[in-house]
């Protein structure tokens, strides 16, 4: 059967070029970078070259890049590390209700440890209100953590403005850019971002590697203590192969963001239009313009997302409903609720996220099947029955 993978916001398939660069570090180049003999020195060199690539892709200095085990660890480190290191200054953190759980659950945990957290709401498109942010800052505020772009609805926040506000108030600013890297131009040197999280597997690199950018001079505790790797700030024997893979992946993802976005957006806009044309009672979630190039998120009234996903899977189409990273939970997505969707509409959401391996022709297959499936499920739905009756 045809397989159409449309869940690139959950994870991506690794690019061949990335895997090829990693392979030597699974075989002959196995030395521990901390050691002084040849095979160790070569590993060290590979790690530092990968770090350079990450730095270059973000307009940062190599010494500001720290490798982690993924976006989640980066988020945990940034938020907890700053919280604990600055608790003599204050105990207040500002974030948003639509963050990824990696930030949200970390904040919930910190609340139990005596920190106070303000969760900013968002408007119907998923944007925060800058005035509200400014008002939320108080003397005790030590950190603002606001995601660059949302993983579910794709909304991109006004990061430059947020940075300016944070800087003016002398508060650290962390942004979870896991979804933004490769889709948005990022130039950290000319930004007011103090910390930025990213992850390899969202940009055609391996799963289980990420990085945290920490601007020089930022007061932050290490999160994982131990050996002196990563300049004494992130302990643990280096995952050389994945670091190399992340370096290659980010290099490729940022080589021509504009050109790349144009292609992806053409597919995205075509998909949105065709769904709008072919299926009624649908609603596009997220911001109409300020959204990630590959993100399509629709609510289909009267039906439930899991049933939709299962039906799509039966014809080989992979999508997601709510956050794929957390779909162990069946609660309607906290992001969709935050933009004001009623529960029943939130439940009927479908995210199709377009990636580098998708083609125009696949989208035809998706739309045809989707229309059919939605109709079939609606025919089973007592809610739809009522609406039909009213018509």
């Amino acid at each position, binding site marked *: 059967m045809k397989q159409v993978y449309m869940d690139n916001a959950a994870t991506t398939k690794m690019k061949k070029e990335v895997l090829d660069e990693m392979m030597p570090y699974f075989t002959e180049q196995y030395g521990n970078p901390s050691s*002084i003999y040849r095979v160790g*020195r070569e590993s060290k060199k590979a790690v530092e070259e990968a770090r350079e690539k990450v730095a270059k892709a973000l307009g940062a200095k190599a010494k500001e890049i720290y490798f982690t085990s993924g976006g989640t660890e980066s988020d945990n480190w940034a938020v907890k590390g700053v919280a604990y*290191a600055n608790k003599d200054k204050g105990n207040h953190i500002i974030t948003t209700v639509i963050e990824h759980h990696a930030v949200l659950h970390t904040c919930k945990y910190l609340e139990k440890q005596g920190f106070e957290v303000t969760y900013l709401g968002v408007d119907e498109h998923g944007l925060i209100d800058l005035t509200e942010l400014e008002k939320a800052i108080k003397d005790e505020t030590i950190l603002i953590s606001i995601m660059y772009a949302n993983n579910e609805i794709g909304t991109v926040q006004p990061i430059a403005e947020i940075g300016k506000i944070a800087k003016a108030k002398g508060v650290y600013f962390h942004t979870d850019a896991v979804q933004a890297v490769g889709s948005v131009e990022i130039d950290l040197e000319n930004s007011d971002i103090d910390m930025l999280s990213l992850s390899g597997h969202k940009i055609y690199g391996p799963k289980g590697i990420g990085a945290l950018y920490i601007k020089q001079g930022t007061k932050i505790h*290490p999160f994982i203590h131990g050996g*002196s790797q990563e*300049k*004494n*700030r992130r302990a643990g024997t280096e995952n050389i192969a994945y670091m190399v893979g992340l370096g290659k992946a980010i290099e490729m993802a940022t080589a021509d963001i504009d050109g790349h976005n144009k292609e992806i957006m053409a597919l995205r806009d075509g998909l949105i239009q065709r769904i709008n044309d072919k299926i009624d009672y649908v609603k596009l979630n997220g911001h109409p313009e300020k959204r990630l190039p590959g993100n399509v998120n629709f609510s289909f009234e009267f039906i439930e997302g899991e049933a939709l996903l299962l039906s799509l899977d039966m014809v080989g189409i992979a999508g997601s409903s709510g956050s794929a990273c957390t779909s162990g939970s069946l609660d309607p997505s906290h992001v969709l609720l935050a933009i004001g969707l009623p529960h029943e509409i939130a439940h009927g959401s479908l995210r199709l996220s377009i990636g580098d391996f998708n083609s125009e022709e696949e989208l035809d297959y998706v739309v045809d099947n989707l229309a059919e499936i939605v109709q079939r499920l609606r025919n089973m739905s007592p809610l739809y029955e009522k609406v039909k009756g009213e018509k």
Partner: protein
Amino acid sequence: MYTEKVMDHFTNPRNVGEIPDADGIGEVGNAKCGDIMKMYLKIEDGVVVDVKFKTFGCGSAIASSSMATEMIKGKTIKEVLALTNKAVAEALDGLPPVKMHCSVLAEQAVKSALLDYSKRSGVAIPELEGFEPDEDVHDHEEHEE
């Protein structure tokens, strides 16, 4: 981690050994820190005509000793006094930051030997007045918290 020059001086150290009838002997460092450097000088008419060293220490300590001996051989006392650890490190095409103290040791071993010479021979070396080699010149990498 090390330059080719360092590795060259480490593997083929110049002037290793002792001078039985040395005019000045300097020993600096301590075994606790993993480094002891001992310099032997033969001085004639204010010129270092021979120099030998022995070192207990890491690769860069051995290379620094070797380089220092090369740099002072045939030089006048005045010229020898001008030898700095930075010059030794530069002559080796650089040392890793954590290893700079090894070159400090080399500079101090040379000065200690000169001081010893001055005491033994009665030749005054005013530049060395008050010179005392540091016990602990170790300056390890910054630990960021």
